[in-house]
Structure formats: C-alpha cells, structure tokens
C-alpha cells in the first residue's frame, strides 16, 4: 500500500503535469537550446582575429611598427587613406573598427606625448552579444600597445617612462546605424542602451502576465462558479461580453504596468545618472511622437495578449486549470525579451528575425530600440502587423464565444460518451 503522503504527491503531480503545462516548457527549452547554438557562434568570434580597416597616415618607424603589428594580429579589409571609404569597407565586411594612425603618431611619442590613434567603431547592435567583436578589437589594441612599449624599451630611445608605458592615446568614435558619434565608445552606448533594452521587455512581460492572467482566471472562475451560463443568457451581445472582459483586464493591466514603470523609472534613472552619458546629444533619444508610437505598440501587444488569453480561457475548465493556461502566453513574451536583450534585432540572422518579428510581443521592444535611431518604417510595419494579429485574435475569441465549446470545453465528447453509456434507457435495453 502506498503511503498517504506519496498518494497525495502523486495526485498533485498528475494534476499539475498536464500537456498544457508541459508542452510550452518543452518548446521553450527547444527554442533556447537553438538560441544557445546561435550565441555559441557569436562567442566563437572571440577566438578569431578581429576584422579591421587600417589607415596609416604616419610614415615614421613607430607608425609603421604599429601598422604592421595591427596587420599581423587582425584580418585587414581596408588599408587605404580615406576615412569614409574605410568605414564603408569595414561595415560591408562586418568588421569591428577602422583604426587611423594619425600623421603625428610617431613624432608625438618621441616628444614624450602619447601618439594619437583614432578608432571608428562599427557598432552593429546594442545587444550584449553585439559587443563581442569590439571586445576582440580592444584586445588586439591592448596587445599592440604592449608590443610598442616593449619595442620602445628595447630601442633605448630617449623617451620618458610614462609615455613608454602608455604610448597610445586612442580617441573613440562610434558608427552605428549610419550615425557617426565622436568621442564615445560602443561600450558606453551599450551601457546606456541596456537600460532601455531591459525596461521595455520587462514591461511587456509584466503586462502580459498580469492582464493575461486576469482574463484567463476570470473565465476560469466564471466557469467554476457557474456564472457564465447566466451571463450568456442575459440580453447582451457576446461581443460586448468579450470586449467588456478585455477592456476590464486591459485597464487593470495598464494600471499595474504604470505602477511598475514608476518603480522601474526610479531604478533606471539612478543607473543612468551613474553612467553620466547623455545619448541625446548624439541624436539618440525619443521625442514625444516616438513615445506615442511605443505606447501604441505596447497597447496593441497587450490587446493581442488579452485576445489570446481569452481564447485560452474559453478552453479552460476551472480556476486552477486557468492558472496554468497563461504559461504559453508568458513563454511567448519571454522569448523576445531574452533574445532582444542579448542581441540587436538587426544583427539576428534572417530566419531568427522573421521568427522574432512574428511574435507580436517583440514589436514594442523593437520599436523602442529602432526609434532611438530614427528608424520609423520598421516600427510602423510592426504596428500594422500588431493591429492585424490583435484583430484576428479578438475576432476568433468572439467567434468561439458563440460556440458550444465555451460551455462544453474540450472534454465534451468524453462526457457525452459517458452520458450515453450510462443513460437509464441504455441500461434497461441491455437488460
């Protein structure tokens, strides 16, 4: 005989471990497994030499030494004289940076000043993984600096020790989405952008969880408390019931999101002050219209989530089942959150871009990031897509609300068969 405890544990596990809870987690694991493979590809870049463009304006021995050392430690795709052409070439080859050894580089060092190297970073995205290529270029520059220090020491030149130890003065410039930003490194931009990259996805996930759960559990409790049947026989259109439930959950969901945003806003503002970089001076900021577009995108994502949860709610049997029903929707919101936190949408492979774009919850995240760099077209396309999927989802919900399945649920045929088998008439006929 099984112990009482194991008996209860078995019952609980059986109740909780249903296809509805298991399948989304398996899908989630598969998706993240494949993302891991993609990330693995990105991390492999670390072990490869960086792709660079080099412009050497200094014909001195020191200048040539740096040029040759850079060339030896990297894959050079441009070594001409024109900065703009260099930037273009490196961008085309998915390179990390264009390095300009200035004409006074060598003479500065011999005069006990650090030689100036201008770096034009080609920033591809604002995700964590996008900084990998610049990290390898950084490592090469550090190596070159060390090599130069060593060479200067070996040459017994009359240069002071401070200059020998720090012979290179690198000025940072970043080229990102067509904008050339002087005096700022990709790392600094990423530090500020990561705040934006986290807050919007978090809001999307929170709103989806709060509002979506409300819709599904509202349906679950209507069914469990047997209030749905009464509601459906009142003189009110089915669409009004659906919209009423959606609007109620949307309002409460947005209130929750607003409260959450205020808290996050304080948290993020403290982080932004500490980074002390104002990206607005480089034209990377949102104006009022941008905020409106992000708001619209967020609202449409919410509508889609609510419509989807309403459909799931239609299939739910009771309150307990309803709570596990939100899991697939939450998973759907978590995928773009994690993907876009690590990589920029623009740097994803095409198939991954299509996959991420197809998830409506990606749109507010893409919108925020794209609008920072003035890319409005993709945001408008995203909003149009969101309108379509939200309308289709709500239409399906209203349609299902008019169907038997709303009351009979998924078990209808099993129940019907059971009823058929045990009817008195059948039993008597068998006798």
């Amino acid at each position, binding site marked *: 005989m099984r112990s009482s405890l194991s008996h209860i544990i078995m019952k609980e596990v059986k109740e909780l471990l249903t296809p509805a809870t298991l399948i989304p987690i398996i899908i989630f694991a598969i998706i993240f497994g494949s993302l891991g493979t993609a990330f693995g590809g990105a991390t492999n870049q670390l072990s490869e030499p960086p792709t660079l463009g080099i412009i050497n304006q200094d014909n001195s021995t020191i200048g040539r030494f740096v040029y040759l050392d850079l060339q030896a430690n990297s894959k050079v795709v441009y070594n001409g004289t024109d900065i703009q052409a260099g930037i273009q070439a490196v961008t085309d080859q998915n390179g990390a940076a264009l390095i300009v050894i200035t004409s006074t580089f060598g003479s500065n060092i011999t005069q006990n000043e650090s030689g100036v190297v201008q770096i034009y970073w080609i920033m591809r995205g604002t995700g964590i993984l996008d900084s990998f290529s610049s990290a390898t270029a950084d490592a090469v520059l550090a190596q070159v600096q060390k090599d130069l220090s060593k060479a200067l020491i070996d040459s017994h030149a009359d240069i002071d020790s401070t200059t020998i130890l720090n012979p290179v003065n690198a000025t940072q410039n970043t080229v990102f989405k067509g904008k050339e930003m002087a005096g700022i490194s990709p790392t600094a931009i990423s530090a500020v952008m990561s705040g934006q990259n986290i807050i919007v996805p978090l809001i999307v996930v929170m709103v989806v969880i709060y509002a979506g759960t409300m819709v599904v559990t509202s349906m679950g409790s209507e069914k469990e408390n047997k209030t749905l*049947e009464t509601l459906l026989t009142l003189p009110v259109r089915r669409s009004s019931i659906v919209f009423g439930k959606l609007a109620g959950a949307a309002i409460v969901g947005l209130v929750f999101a607003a409260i959450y945003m205020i808290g996050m806003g304080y948290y993020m503002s403290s982080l932004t002050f500490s980074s002390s970089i104002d990206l607005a001076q480089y034209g990377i900021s949102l104006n009022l219209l941008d905020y409106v577009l992000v708001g619209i995108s967020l609202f449409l994502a919410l509508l889609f989530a609510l419509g989807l949860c309403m459909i799931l709610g239609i299939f739910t049997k009771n309150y307990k089942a309803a709570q596990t029903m939100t899991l697939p929707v939450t998973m759907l919101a978590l995928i773009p959150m994690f993907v876009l936190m690590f990589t920029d949408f623009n740097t994803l492979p095409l198939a991954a871009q299509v996959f991420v774009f197809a998830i409506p919850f990606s749109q507010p995240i893409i919108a925020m990031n794209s609008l920072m760099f003035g890319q409005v077209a993709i945001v408008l396309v995203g909003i149009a897509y969101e309108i379509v999927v939200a309308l289709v989802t709500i239409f399906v919900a209203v349609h299902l609300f008019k169907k038997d399945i709303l009351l009979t649920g998924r078990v209808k*045929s099993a129940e019907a068969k059971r009823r058929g088998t045990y009817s*008195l008439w059948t039993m008597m006929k068998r006798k």
Partner: protein
Amino acid sequence: MGASPVRSPWKDDRMPAIEVNRLTKKYGEFLALKDVTFSVEEGEVYGLIGPNGAGKTTTLRVLATLLEVTSGDVKIYGKDLVKQADDVRKIISYLPEDAGAYKNMKGIEYLNFIADFFVEGQKKKEMIQRGLDVANLGERIGDRIDTYSKGMARRLLVARALMIQPKLAILDELTSGLDVLNAQEIRRVVKTAARQGTTVLLSSHNMLEVELMCDRIALINDGHIVASGSPQDLKSKYNAANIEEVFVEVVK
C-alpha cells in the same frame, strides 16, 4: 422518436410560448437529442423529467440560447431561436442547475447588476424590489454572497431569474440540493410567477416535484421524448399511482 405537439384543450386560445419541432443536438458524433418535439402554451408550467444524461439539461440549454442547434426548429414566443437569439434573450430567464452568483458581490449588488441589463430608473427600482421580495433574505441581502448558505444563494438566484418578469423562465433542477422547507418556498415562488403570466419550463429528477408543479410533463430518455401529457392523463393512461410509476412503465 418524437412525440407530436400536445396542446391542452383548455389552453387552445393561447399563443404557444415554446414550439420545438424535431430538435436534434449533436456533441461531435454523440447524438444528445433526437428529433425532440413539444410545445408549451403561454402561462403553462411544463416539466421535463428523466434520468441523468437523458437530455433534459441539453434541451434547456438549447432553448436558453446557450448551445447551438444541430437541426430542427425552435420558436420562443414566435421568435426563431437561432436567427433572433438576441431578441429571445430579452424575454427569457434561465436558471442553471448549481448556478452561482459572483461571490465577491453582496446580494443586493448582484440584483442591481442583473437589473442594469434590463431597465433603468424607477422601473429598475421596482424590479429590484421584486427581487428582494422573492429572495426574502432580510438583512442578509447586504452581505457578501460567499457567506450565504446553499438555500440562501438559490433563493437569490431564483429572485434574479424571476424579478425581471420574463415571458419564459427556464429552470434547471429548480430545487436540487435544497432542504424540504427551502424547496417548498422556492416552488411556491415559481408557481406564483406562473399565475402572474410567466411561462415556466423546468426540469427535475424529482417526480413528486414535477407532479406538484406542472400542468404538463414530458418524459425524456436517451435524447428523445418517450411520453407527454398532463400528470393526471399520464397516470390514467399507464394505470399508475404516481409519475414515478409512469416513468418506470414507459421506459420498460
């Protein structure tokens, strides 16, 4: 096999409140109702009796516009159940078996919530007053519904169903799970409503209840009506002492 529409001779001058003609209902492949045919006159109390799974609740749910009609015609006060479902909902009131009310509401709030769907102003006040009279919950009407006993909750729900003075009240297992006193009180309330002109279609396992309340009854089993008529007629026809004996005789 469906029974042909039966009309009591003394009610021929009244318009039919319900006309069900060859109603068939399928759940997937399962045939829950097979060619069910009956009619109910205005002001009549009509009962459906039968065992679990016979098709009583399915019939009532179809007539309450909750389930789709697979085939057949249903008219409620002349309105087509499928094409004019919104109009039908304005004149019916459905009380499901084990129905619940919103537990976070107080009794009075629930009556208010329902009344808002039908009328406003003075008429709404009158409607709620009718609800208060039927529920007869005294001061407890101001308490949250989740504090009510089963009998109190059922009285509130009957009040909800009848306060709107529906032309047709569809009542599924009216007194199921109630004690004798509560059941008797609720039967009295429903009979009063019927005397005031509400047509009542009810279902029950309780053959005695049906005999006490109904002008006519239909015995339903395995998805079709096997006999129908007034309790007295059926008892005479099957030479039975009560409806329970009629039922056993019919399904034998």
